[in-house]
């Protein structure tokens, strides 16, 4: 058990294990994404109210779900790096922010495109859209704070504090925005109580949510590998890696 934690603190081990996870997780992710997309686009019936435009749900909802979960991953990694001074958690936290921002961006853009045929406008100040927009601001704030510091160690700590503050605030922000826009649709997938979405549409959606979680993990690991190489540029294992790459090229 403890040796696992010791290994987790070792950059070359983490770099290697991230690489070997990616070797099988990346193909699985791509296959899941492809199957989910084909299933959702070709093998489901259109929604009786929204017609075919509802097919955007297969990217919109997974992106939104994973974007929100990503903030919590970032905050937990930040807390671990603050409390236990674990460098690898700091690397993971740093890697989360751009991925989360990209997923939030996907959720916002697809939601806006979906809104045009459904509501007739590109943008509605509805509770969930507004919350996602605020989430995007929170992610970009973390990125901006990290970039503003010259001392990257302090930058990591400051971002960890900021993401923890964000974690406390996100439920408050969501509840306030929800209250502010009290006329919103009920959440369409509820795990308690009956689901309001048809099973034939639900399965591809769940598959896509799983695929997006895998995608998030893949991007996280790839970003961590890039970050590790940059941070450890002066160590022997990175130099060995660079020479090996040179020899192959």
């Amino acid at each position, binding site marked *: 058990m403890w040796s696992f934690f010791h290994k987790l603190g070792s950059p070359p081990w983490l770099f290697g294990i991230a690489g070997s996870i990616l070797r099988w997780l990346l193909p699985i992710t791509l296959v899941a994404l492809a199957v989910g997309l084909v299933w959702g686009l070709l093998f489901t019936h259109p929604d009786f109210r929204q017609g075919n435009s509802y097919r955007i749900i297969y990217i919109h909802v997974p992106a939104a779900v994973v974007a929100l979960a990503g903030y919590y991953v970032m905050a937990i990694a930040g807390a671990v790096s603050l409390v236990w001074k674990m460098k690898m958690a700091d690397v993971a936290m740093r890697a989360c922010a751009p991925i989360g921002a990209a997923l939030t961006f996907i959720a916002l853009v697809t939601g806006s495109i979906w809104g045009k045929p459904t509501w007739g406008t590109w943008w509605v100040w509805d509770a969930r859209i507004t919350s996602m927009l605020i989430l995007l601001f929170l992610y970009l*704030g973390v990125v901006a*704070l990290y970039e503003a*510091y010259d*001392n990257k160690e302090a930058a990591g700590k400051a971002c960890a*504090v900021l993401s923890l*503050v964000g974690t406390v*605030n996100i439920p408050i*922000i969501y509840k*306030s925005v929800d209250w502010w826009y009290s006329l919103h649709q009920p959440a369409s997938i509820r795990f308690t109580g009956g689901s309001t979405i048809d099973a034939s549409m639900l399965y591809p959606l769940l598959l896509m949510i799983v695929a997006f979680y895998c995608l998030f993990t893949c991007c996280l690991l790839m970003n961590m590998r890039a970050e590790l190489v940059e941070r450890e540029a002066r160590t022997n294992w990175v130099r060995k890696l660079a020479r090996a790459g040179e020899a192959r090229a």
Partner: protein
Amino acid sequence: MSPASRPPATSAFCLTLVRRQLTLAVRRPVDIGNPLLFFAMVVALFPLGLGPAPDKLADFAPGILWIIALLSSLLSSDTVFRSDFEDGSLEQLLLAPQPLYLSVLAYILAHWLITGALLALVSPLFAVMINLPSAAIPALVCALALGTAVLSLVGGIGAALTVGLKRGGMLISLLILPFYMPVLIFGSAAVRQAALGAPAAPYLAILGAMLCLAIALAPLAIAAGLRISVDA
């Protein structure tokens, strides 16, 4: 240990801090006046932008007043720790035996007294200028008093995280504006309800709850932020 070398009691220490900050502010009255002047000028912008029709202005008044209060609190929050960081007294504060939680709270209290509380006191004047119904004015003052205290606490987090940076000014707004939004929502709702003749108390109670949460948690984040900024 002789009584003379014993460090001052925590309460006396915090009181001294508040008094020191207030004295510093009174010696430079421009710093107190600037947020108020900003408030007055932005109030004047809205009729120019939206048109002078009194009923339209009255409709938007709760939101306008709250957004301006939010911006003036935001602009002044950058300065909470900056001068003390530059002359090194912040480092002394971190080394002091008194709990940092309480001394940070003292800084924020002083900041709130010279910005938020003052803004709440003069807000009826601006409310009249943009035709807010007079029934809503007590609610406006209460909501601003409670809400700006939350804004000062949250702004302090941003100030603590950016105090070591040369170009912190714009960054601090990006960091903390998202956290201001719940206060804006409930603060302007309280004023709007009061303007419609409905009781504002539930909204004020929610603002009070936010204030309690902020008092409990924000000083922890501010203290952590100050340690990071001073170490860096």
